[in-house]
């Protein structure tokens, strides 16, 4: 870290118990505690959080948009994974 360069963290917040953590944005901080404090100050002023995760941006492993086709398109035509693909007569119950 340079003398004054604080690393970037990505912020994930669980808004209410029962919900998943969602990505809210990013913040700069010098250490973990500061990152939590800054995330709390920036993103939960209006009662929007019960839990905060902060992760160094460099630790996030992301899929490459250039690979989107090979990663995601094959799933698009395997529609037999979706329940609506199958025709079951209406009078069969519980299925």
């Amino acid at each position: 870290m340079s003398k004054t360069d604080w690393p970037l963290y990505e912020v994930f917040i669980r808004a209410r118990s029962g919900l998943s953590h969602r990505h809210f944005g990013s913040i700069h901080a010098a250490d973990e505690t500061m990152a939590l404090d800054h995330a709390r100050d920036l993103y939960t002023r209006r009662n929007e959080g019960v839990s905060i995760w902060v992760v160094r941006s460099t630790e996030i492993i992301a899929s490459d948009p250039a690979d989107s086709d090979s990663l995601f398109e094959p799933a698009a035509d395997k529609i037999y994974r979706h329940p609506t693909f199958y025709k079951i007569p209406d009078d069969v119950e519980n299925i």
Partner: protein
Amino acid sequence: MTKEQALITYATRMGDNAIVMAQRLSEWVGHGPELEEEMAMANFALDYVGQARMFFSYAGELDGKGQSEDDICFLRDGWDYGNVLLLEQPNGDFGEAIARLVLFETFYSLQLEGLVSSPARKLAEIAACAIKESTYHIRHAGHWLIRLGDGTDESHRRVQHAIDRLWTYTGELFEADQVDQIMQAKWEGPDLTVLREQWHRQIDALLSKATLQKPADGWMDSGGKQGHHSEHLGYILAEMQSLQRTYPGANW
């Protein structure tokens, strides 16, 4: 002094501490070392304004003279203000601001804890509310004290100087006058001698983590609680009260 009068004065003093602190913290807007810290300071100021409102409203109700939170805040002069001297000191650099926050909040959270079981129910409720805010303030300021104390040579020097400079104002926090004594005796308020020991233990631990030296107890300045202030309070009040004084009776 009756126990009711003591309670009114005590609640007003707590409001005074809160609003003077809020004024000093507000001065950091636009001047912080980093944007996030400006937000944090503004956040603390907001917490303190909220507390001031609760304490002043409560004191006004108890007094029964129809005074609002704003009447109490904006229309009293310095000799009626009972905030402690520590809070009216100018901000100085960021190190001094953090040092002041740590020294005061450590006391304040103990004071608030000491009030949550008071039979003065409303006061106890306000204290319970304020403790949560105070806990976060201490966490934030405490971590900064450690970062500055154990950061660079320069930061260490600056924050040590700040602690040394402000130490003379810490004695007043634990000086029990008649109001404090009645609070303890009749309203189950905190025992300031006990608070002082707890405060010293907590401050010792924090200063040690921050690699800072605890100053020796020298002469302690005081008198704020009795309305004998430093020259700084006059300017704080002049600024804060200017609109209400210039346009008496107006609604805003």
